[in-house]
């Protein structure tokens, strides 16, 4: 455990990522205190540029404060991304473990199923799902989860397939351990490293996916998210550049920090690969 923390801390990108993510999360939690007004409230005149009186980042077409919108938007975005990722991971691990361990026809069926999902353009699928099932938080989470679990299942399946033939697993079989016990205590703990790395990157993709859906108007109509603000800014791009720039920067910074954390996790958990990847 200590070796892992040490290794992670050696990665500058990872540290930066953690700090930035921490700040964003902090903003999400304290939004209510720092910005007491609701983001839907009209607080000022419309189209006010940044650094005007009472509107740090400007206001939108109706006079709503952009800074407030970004702060509250972080809550929705982080929540949706986290929940959908957790669901994806649970589904992915279960499906991948069963396919990898039992092999044979179970595996063939599952692989066919996964391949089906990977043939369909995933963003399109998400759009179609949310559109037809009517947009709200639940359908967005559902759509993102549906689209995100196949790659993870593939990963877990590969790990299980390789570990299953490892000698310590065979030794456990010879010792008389039951299959469930072997899956849970022998194989699963040893296959978690790539899952953890993936988890970080999956949250990042979920954020990108969610904001793209909101941009197209497919987000929950009661929630202001970063994508939503950018979507609204399209028609007034010329006149209110701050409406599109700042929320976008928020997305960029959050996703980047998650990617950096993912990379640092990967380097810390796979030291052999990391040494080969770069010398710094």
């Amino acid at each position, binding site marked *: 455990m200590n070796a892992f923390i040490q290794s992670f801390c050696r990665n500058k990108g990872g540290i930066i990522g953690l700090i930035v993510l921490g700040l964003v999360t902090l903003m999400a939690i304290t939004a209510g205190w720092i910005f007491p007004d609701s983001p839907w409230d009209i607080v000022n005149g419309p189209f006010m540029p940044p650094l005007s009186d009472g509107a740090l980042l400007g206001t939108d077409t109706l006079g709503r404060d952009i800074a407030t919108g970004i702060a509250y938007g972080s809550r929705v975005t982080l929540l949706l991304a986290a929940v959908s990722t957790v669901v994806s991971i649970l589904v992915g691990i279960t499906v991948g473990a069963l396919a990898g361990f039992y092999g044979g026809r179970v595996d063939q069926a599952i692989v066919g199923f996964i391949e089906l999902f990977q043939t369909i353009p995933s*963003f399109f699928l998400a759009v179609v799902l949310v559109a037809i*099932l009517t947009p709200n938080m639940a359908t967005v989470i559902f759509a993102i989860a549906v689209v995100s679990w196949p790659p993870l299942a593939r990963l877990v399946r590969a790990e299980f397939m390789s570990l299953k033939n490892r000698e310590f697993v065979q030794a456990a079989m010879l010792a008389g351990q039951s299959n469930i016990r072997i899956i849970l205590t022998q194989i699963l703990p040893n296959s978690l490293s790539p899952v953890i790395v993936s988890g970080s990157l999956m949250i990042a993709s979920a954020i990108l996916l969610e904001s793209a859906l909101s941009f197209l108007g497919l987000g929950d109509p009661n929630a202001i998210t970063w994508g939503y603000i950018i979507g609204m800014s399209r028609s007034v791009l010329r006149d209110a550049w701050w409406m599109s720039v700042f929320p976008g920067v928020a997305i960029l910074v959050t996703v980047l920090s998650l990617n950096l954390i993912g990379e640092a996790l990967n380097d810390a958990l796979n030291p052999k690969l990391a040494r080969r990847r770069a010398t710094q």
Partner: protein
Amino acid sequence: MKAVSKFLANRVVKSALVLLMIALFNFFLVRAAPGDPAEILAGQSGAVDAEFIEKLRQEFGLDKPIPVQLGHYLKNVATFDLGYSYRQQASVSSLILQHLPATLLLTLSAFAFALLAGISLGTQAALRVGKWGDTVITTLSMLAYATPLFWVGLMLVLLFSVNLEWLPAFGYESVGADLTGMARMADVAKHLLLPALTLGMFYMAVYARLTRASILEISQLDFVKTARAKGLSERTVIVRHVLRNALLPVITYAGIQAGGLIGGSLLVETVFAWPGIGRLAFDALVQRDYSVLLGVFFVASLIVVVVNIVTDILYTVADPRIELK
């Protein structure tokens, strides 16, 4: 040759199954959604009257049992009848065919850009691993990878069209200009530049990182040592031995990304008002014209299926170890 035709036959069957699944999915999704399927198919734009909906119900046989409806629907799909758009007063198939060329132009340009730029940048980064050039390229890749597609488009428009006024912000070609031949091509190219760049940027980052990682990994393998032991110059070793092997996984991955490119075109075409099937889908989305939306979805999947088959064939050509199965 026999192996190739056997392989193709195999894949066609598999692909047909995939498309069947998608068609079934479309069918059941409409019926699983809240609300009246007839209204959904008519386009809930509110402008459709009750008579139309009744006519629709009868035409689609929505009052008949499900298996009958399913058979009817599948038969239509097989003959490429994807429904009718009451909003646009045209068959879905014709609408799609009309808009398809623009999307193909956009995605192919974006793909070519992403692949060429990505591979060169990735190679350059790998050659300078650990040094300044590598850090710059890797950082830029990370930024491009973390940036939302639709936002990049808007920012590029903001910079190049609104502020600098170098490039047009919208559309396929200048309206009313009536150009022909080379002048027309140049005009289209000017309009194509920003959208292609936007769509390609994310994938350029993906390919750059993949190429870099692949080259570094391959460079560690024994046969590279053997090549060096022969007295070949470092340059020859990299180009002739490392690169050819390192690009194999990139080819595979590029094929897998086809779905992502098509999905991305939905966003890019919306931002740039590019008249492709992505834009068509977005308008259908806004107008609640779900027949069109589902039709585009089906065609997009069809394109991905075809691309996958092509990629598989290309890969077996590139890697002599793989036999067509």
